[in-house]
């Protein structure tokens, strides 16, 4: 099999970090090289997963106030805040050069980054099919998709993370949701700055290239993008940021604020409402494997739910209403 082409872009404008891999995917055929792109954005921006509804995820006014551009990627996963403190790796391969089974695609493409974390001295592992974690905490985001004949897997390594900016732009259903999400994010997401502050981005980039070559059992050769590829990427960028593309799926589902947010492989924030014992209860929960870690309850008519919130800790989420009825 031919060597993998490496495109190491360094710090580039946000549009390039999304549009290039889309363009390479669109143009993929048996004559195009499998490619790994390494890059990072020189300015912060937001990125929406393909099936997410913009208004349910992001507060457009807050995004505009912060001057954050938004792109929708054609890959899966959740909304992300991205900036120059993150290294992106993007594997764009002909689909016949990747496994068929989805879990194997992730194992194949993410073995390199996991090994890099291990070589640095961190306890990196792949959990729940596609989450890269260190000691149970998330240190990276991942996603993937099939674009034409290309199978694509992307991910990043967090050197630092702007927790405040990420949580501020979420379209949260209430204050409790935002504050629980912020708390969970701080507890379940970890960065290189926290764990290995002396390791540089350049060191990690070098190790990633070595580890991709080793895990994929293929040679990696530095290359450049052709003029046609650059041109295709510029066209892709226009589409990914267009209002028509950002408005996708608007009519498919209810565009209410999000009610479920994944923080890491085993941390979710969920909002729900129920009528219990004459109260209309609005519950916000931090769940780990469907068990309530923390609950915030509000109701109409109002009452003090503090003691009940304590009792709900450790209860299965599916039983929370029943528990309230008992209490």
């Amino acid at each position, binding site marked *: 099999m031919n060597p993998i082409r490496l495109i190491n872009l360094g710090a580039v404008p946000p549009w390039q970090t999304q549009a290039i891999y889309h363009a390479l995917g669109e143009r993929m055929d048996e004559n195009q090289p499998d490619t790994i792109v390494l890059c990072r954005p020189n300015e912060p921006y937001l990125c929406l*997963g*393909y*099936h997410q509804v913009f208004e349910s995820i992001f507060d457009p006014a807050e995004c505009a106030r912060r001057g954050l551009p938004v792109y929708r990627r*054609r*890959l*899966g*996963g*959740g909304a992300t805040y991205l900036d120059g403190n993150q290294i992106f790796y993007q594997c764009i391969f002909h689909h*016949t050069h*990747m*496994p*068929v*089974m*989805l*879990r*194997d*695609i*992730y194992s194949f493409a993410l073995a390199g980054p996991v090994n890099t974390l291990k070589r640095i001295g961190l306890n990196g592992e792949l959990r729940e*099919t*596609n989450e890269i974690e260190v000691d149970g905490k998330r240190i990276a985001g*991942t*996603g*993937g*998709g*099939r674009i034409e004949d290309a199978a694509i*897997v992307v991910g990043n390594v967090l050197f630092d993370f702007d927790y405040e900016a990420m949580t501020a732009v979420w379209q949260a259903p209430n204050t409790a949701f935002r504050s629980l999400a912020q708390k969970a994010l701080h507890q379940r997401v970890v960065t290189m700055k926290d764990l290995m502050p002396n390791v540089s981005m350049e060191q990690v980039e070098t190790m990633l290239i070595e580890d991709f070559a080793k895990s994929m059992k293929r040679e990696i050769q530095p290359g450049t993008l052709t003029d046609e590829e650059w041109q295709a990427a510029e066209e892709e960028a226009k589409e990914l940021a267009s209002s028509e593309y950002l408005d996708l*799926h608007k009519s*498919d*589902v209810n565009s209410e604020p999000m009610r479920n947010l994944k923080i890491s492989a085993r941390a979710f924030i969920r909002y729900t409402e129920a009528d219990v014992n004459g109260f209309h209860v609005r519950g916000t929960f931090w769940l780990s494997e469907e068990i309530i870690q923390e609950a915030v309850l509000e109701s109409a008519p109002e009452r003090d739910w503090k003691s009940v919130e304590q009792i709900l800790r450790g209860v299965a989420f599916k039983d929370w209403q029943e528990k309230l009825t008992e209490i």
Partner: protein
Amino acid sequence: MSNIQEFKIGADYYTIPADRFYGREDHMWALYDHATGNVTIGMDALGLAALGDLAYVSLQPVGTTVSRGETLGTLEAAKMTGDLTSPISGEIVERNDLTIRNPALVNEETYTNGWLVIIKPSDWENESKQLVSTEELPVWVESELTRYRQQGWID
């Protein structure tokens, strides 16, 4: 449902009923309704086995005209997206919005309530010949399983 082809991937068993046609590469099933002349389209168990549990399904609106091989919609499983391609040409006359609201239906009731769209075909007679028929089913399933093994390291 009769003549069900059963196969195993890892520890799990999957079924391919022989009462319908299948796309050779896209793993979409097509069930012709002799009363209406319409064709119900869904995704087959082999395709779903490769993906796992679906998290999202989106479908083209009713009235959309699709050609064979064009996208009927998209899906997402474990943060990975893909196209749902049409095994035949025609006009979408009905879509199953239940699968948009609850994509698990496609995994759980693959050949019944997990259907995706109903198409009024424009050339069923010719295009159905390009699909996998009942007679070809055992050979096709075996060849796909071989491909999965070679490309996917399944047990």
